[in-house]
């Protein structure tokens, strides 16, 4: 074997950050940019959250927000009530939903090898929305905990439909998008039907929720969403390596010893669970699952070990920021954060569509 130049090992340490223990037989590798990017995103998210919690008809100074949340200042009971009961759960929900949608988008783009794929574009969100509205309108007395399960089922059916109709030997990107948009439109039509014929009180409930908003969300919603994230975010991180392999194409992945069908099924379940749970919590917040992975890829590159957490934080930041903007831009009128993300996201989607027009 030929000798290896010495400088080789030093350049490798520049692009990758390696954690390795020989005695524990552990080793991990991420892109060198990841730790700093994650730290910066976390700081930005926290700043947005503090501003968001402080902002409102009853403004609270930022320092007091931090103190109250950390429990350092419990003397002002108004602060405690406004923050803990009204504003904090809402801000946390915005972040959690953004995180889940961004991861779902990253997984979907990776597993379809399609830069245009995202749960809101290929009809997964619309499917989840239909199932959730059906539950609200048809069974109004059912507890909130069941909403994510219905949404999961709706998302899964939509995903399987799109997958089955569009998948043909790898499937061209545009084909998947077209079928997805079609399935999404059908689901939306049924949702409208449900709203037209439903009981007026239940319908108004469903409408607030459908707009893609975190308005009025409380700790109960956090509780309903949390288990889904606790299970499926770690699952997505465990599947990161598989996505890297699948990204090289089925044949290469198979030659490398990946059980392609099995991995793809696991990835699809994870993606559907995360988007279903977030739709069940905050309605259809569009384009986050599309934008966040692209922005994250610009920041840390293609390797999914670093890409998934980065996209998650980007998504969380986007929705938290969109909610803050929605509340402040035309105050006291509140714009749902889903409208804000759509205003920014739709042109971005058109740009991506234009860039991918030849494939």
């Amino acid at each position: 074997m030929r000798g290896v130049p010495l400088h080789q090992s030093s350049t490798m340490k520049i692009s990758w950050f390696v954690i390795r223990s020989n005695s524990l037989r552990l080793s991990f590798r991420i892109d060198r940019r990841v730790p700093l990017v994650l730290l910066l995103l976390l700081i930005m998210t926290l700043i947005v959250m503090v501003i968001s919690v402080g902002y409102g008809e009853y403004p609270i100074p930022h320092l007091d927000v931090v103190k109250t949340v950390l429990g350092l200042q419990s003397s002002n009971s108004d602060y405690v009530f406004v923050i803990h009961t009204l504003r904090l759960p809402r801000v946390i929900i915005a972040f959690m939903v953004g995180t889940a949608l961004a991861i779902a988008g990253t997984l979907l783009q990776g597993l379809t090898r399609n830069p245009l794929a995202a749960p809101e574009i290929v009809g997964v969100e619309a499917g989840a929305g239909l199932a959730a509205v059906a539950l609200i309108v048809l069974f109004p007395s059912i507890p909130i905990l069941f909403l994510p399960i219905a949404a999961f089922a709706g998302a899964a059916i939509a995903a399987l439909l799109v997958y089955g109709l569009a998948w043909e030997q790898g499937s061209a990107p545009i084909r998947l998008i077209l079928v997805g948009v079609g399935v999404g439109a059908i689901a939306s039509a049924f949702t409208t039907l449900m709203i037209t014929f439903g009981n007026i009180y239940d319908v108004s409930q469903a409408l607030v929720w459908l707009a893609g908003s975190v308005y009025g969300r409380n700790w109960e919603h956090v509780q309903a969403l949390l288990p889904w994230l606790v299970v499926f975010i770690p699952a997505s991180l465990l599947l990161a390596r598989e996505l890297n392999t699948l990204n090289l194409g089925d044949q290469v992945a198979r030659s490398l010893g990946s059980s392609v069908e099995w991995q793809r099924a696991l990835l699809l379940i994870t993606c559907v669970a995360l988007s279903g749970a977030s739709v069940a919590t905050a309605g259809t917040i569009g384009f986050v699952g599309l934008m966040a992975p692209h922005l994250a890829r610009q920041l840390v590159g293609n390797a999914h070990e670093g890409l998934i957490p980065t996209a998650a934080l980007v998504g969380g930041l986007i929705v938290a920021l969109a909610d803050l903007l929605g509340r402040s831009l035309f105050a006291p009128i509140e714009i749902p954060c889903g409208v804000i993300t759509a205003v920014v996201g739709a042109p971005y989607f058109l740009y991506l569509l234009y860039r991918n027009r030849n494939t």
Partner: protein
Amino acid sequence: MKTDTSTESALTTRKLSLAYADTTIIEALDLAIPAGRITALVGPNGCGKSTLLKGLARLVKPKAGVVYLDSASIFKLSTKEVAKRLGMLPQGPVAPEGLTVRELVAQGRYPHQGWLQQWSQEDERFTEQALAITSVAELADRPLDSLSGGQRQRAWIAMTLAQNTDVLLLDEPTTFLDLAHQIEVLDLLYELNQTQNRTIVMVLHDLNQACRYADYLVAMRQGCIYAQGIPTKVMTEAMVREVFGLESRIVADPVAGTPMCVPIGRKSREARLHQG
């Protein structure tokens, strides 16, 4: 060395039949790939040579028959176990946008990794080695889509090398490359075979290159093997006529001395007639 036929087989097929949906491509094929040698599969378009290669790499499930790796059935081993011993480079693979050469080559270590052992010293060593052997080390941090076709192909070969398998299958590793890059890739494969004793099986379109680089030649026609053996025995005017439907003369390659096929074709036949 090329006359020694009593070697062991790295890969063997027994009554192997391969099919896509209802179309049978390969029918009851018996083949033994000699270990530590270079084997070339040649044949006209659609004769099933690519399908056979995929069958050998368990990428196509057989309709009937078995593929043995050393002496174990490839379908009884776990797919990861196979991937530690057998690498395969499909034709015209595509990498995601922006993927760097080093990231690609590191992917070759996948079968040797687990959840806790994601980047061992061994992984790093084999990746560096593969980058160096294929002379893409200087390009390691460049995105794959910014490279020339030859460089890109070398990077993909480097990925399969990082996999560190005894057996290497390559489907038309020289397509879309200009002549200089074709020779460069074939020289690289020859060197790997010579210095590391790797078994190499490749589908090649160019008969003369196949004769030059392969120890063992398999000529296929309509899903069956027409002839197999050392190139001097397989490469005959009759074989070219019956397998490719082409009249030709077989002469000695002026450089390597291996058989060289000079096609006749209608134009040269007419020209010869005119000359008298």
